């Protein structure tokens, strides 16, 4: 575990499950006795538009609900262009950018994905994973958000068990099989981040 203060920006497209990523981390932080602020986008943008969640955890009181520019230890994306959109939030000294490699193309002028990935690779600390492919291998292509959470988890100041509990609680209502797939997806992301 690292310092227990952490700012994270989670980006994606409405419907990709970024609020679930933020929710699991926030609950785990609360369980660990930390303070939490988690700002999220509801409403119109959730209809397939660009969405983001700002998540802040700390042992001390947290003031702003938003991560300051240059203040994020992690900027992560369920989608590479959306991750890159939040680059100004990344801490230039120590921030990691963690993103799905696969683009979500729902606009006519989506840029060449290779150019986007090349921009991300330029950064000293980046992790690009075929999140959707890994989710499929884990049993459900829609659990990509849990792959991404797994990939982030090694850099969070939180015990893995708290995150696993959070996932189990989040999917509990959908049955044991769904919980299982999501835990598998998380494990795949976590292993890839350690590699």
């Amino acid at each position: 575990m690292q310092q227990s203060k952490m700012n994270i920006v989670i980006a994606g497209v409405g419907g990709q499950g970024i609020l679930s990523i933020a929710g699991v981390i926030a609950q785990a932080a609360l369980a660990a006795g930390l303070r939490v602020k988690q700002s999220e986008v509801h409403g119109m943008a959730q209809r397939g538009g660009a969405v983001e969640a700002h998540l802040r955890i700390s042992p001390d009181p947290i003031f702003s609900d938003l991560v300051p520019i240059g203040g994020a230890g992690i900027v992560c994306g369920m989608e590479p262009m959306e991750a890159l959109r939040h680059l100004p939030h990344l801490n230039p000294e120590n921030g990691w950018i963690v993103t799905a490699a696969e683009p979500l193309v729902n606009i006519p002028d989506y840029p060449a994905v290779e150019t986007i990935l090349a921009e991300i690779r330029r950064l000293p600390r980046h992790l690009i994973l075929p999140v959707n492919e890994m989710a499929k291998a884990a049993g459900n292509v829609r659990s990509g958000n849990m792959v991404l959470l797994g990939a982030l988890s090694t850099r969070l100041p939180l015990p893995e068990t708290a995150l696993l509990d959070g996932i189990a609680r989040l999917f509990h209502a959908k049955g044991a099989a769904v919980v299982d797939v999501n835990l598998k997806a998380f494990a795949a992301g976590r292993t890839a981040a350690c590699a």
Partner: protein
Amino acid sequence: MGDIRLLLGDEAIAQGAIDAGISGCYAYPGTPSTEIMEYVQRTPQAAAKTVHARWSANEKTAMEEGLGMSYAGRRAIVCMKHVGLNVAADGFVNAAVTGTHGGLVVVAADDPSMHSSQNEQDSRFYAKFAFIPSLEPASQQEAYDMMAYAFELSETMCVPVLMRITTRLAHSRADVRTAGTARAANPLSMPPDAKRFILLPGIARRNYQGLLDKQPKFLDLAEQSPFNTFTDGPDKSVGILAAGITVNYLRELFPDGVCPHPVLKLSQYPWPKAAIQRLLDSCGTVMVLEEGAPFIEEALHGALGLSPTITGRLTGALPRTGELSSETIARALGLPTRPGLQPANPVAVLRARPPRMCDGCPHIDAYKALLDALGDTGKGHVFADIGCYTLGALPPFEAINSCVDMGASISMAKGAADAGLFPAIAVIGDSTFTHSGMTPLLDAVAHGSRITVLILDNGTTGMTGGQESLATGRLDKVCAGLGVPPDRIRAITPLAKQHAANVEALKDAIFGNDKGVTVVIASRECIQTARHKRV
């Protein structure tokens, strides 16, 4: 013993209201206020029916229903987005004149930066306009704590109390310590002086004077409010007046949140004049930080232009519009900001990604049919409304020409038809229709205005996440009841395989309409709602 929960600002308000012993929550869904009612509906108290928690037809009915519950001695909370308060304004302003019996708290959620709204109006003006106290919590915890206070305030002063929040608080979660117990609900009781609810001029004049007489007391309460706090600081080059959540952005800039300037945190209105005067006297200059309009700042400048001792949104120190942030405040105070990394070539790698209708959305098929039915009629004939279908304004559809306020599709189509425009078509969703579409339809029927109304019945209030819609499935009967002749109420099913038939039906409705109103109801369930029902 209380417990600590992770709650959205909206949820903290709901939990606070429940713990303050409400008997009713009245609301119409609207971002960023929707989650208040949704939280109340999820609680055991609502399930046990000790708290009435159903969506109302619109904010005005919600407001008046809340007032009715207050009349009967019980506590009620009424929730809406900022523009909803325009709809509720008649009841809201006059509830201040009748006064309340059981506690009545109105929550208006403002949306600076217009994340999901058509304007960024500031609800604090409404509280001032109605001569009632208002509260503006700075954090989720304070939002929770303020609810008990707000209901006490309402009951002791016999007026409704407005709580004003903004999107950032509404939709941010934080750890909130709750009381863990709920105050018992008030018993049913008649107001001892029930006549004051009859606003005949003679009574209204007396009530209004009574309301004005309470103003010094409201000011006093704000001066002493536990939520208006002064923190001294050694650097008196400027004093800072920070309203609501702006104090967080300010404190963010300093180690351990300790601002070197004197700070007056303001969360209860009318603004405390003496406290502000003290801040101004000790520093000479005051910077005003407030979300939304320069509400306090403008008053401090005075009527005749800008004062050299006040800075803020009006003087250009801060942006005139949009949400504030720790960065904008840092710049105003001359503090360094981090530049933030940028892609080497932003233009090559970043594109706007506006919202769009879901794949498979029934509105898509309705718009495709409408566009084909209109053929080469040309642009400018379609008046639309507020909902997911407003996204039909964007490519590839570009199917609509207006979106103003709830219900305006039908009224504007009617006005344009009265002016001679043909065809004049209104596109409106089922929930928006029951919110504010029925009355203009009545106008159009009564006046014989030549319009076609396309009601998109997706069975829900889709844009805000699928809340109950009150007349879905019986819109034909509603229209018939309003006087649309039965042969001019048509039904289509917006599905790709029905496209040709739908185009014909719409052509016939629009161009076969030689006089009066024709209604076409396009019914197919929102696919998001349908999906949620399956799991």
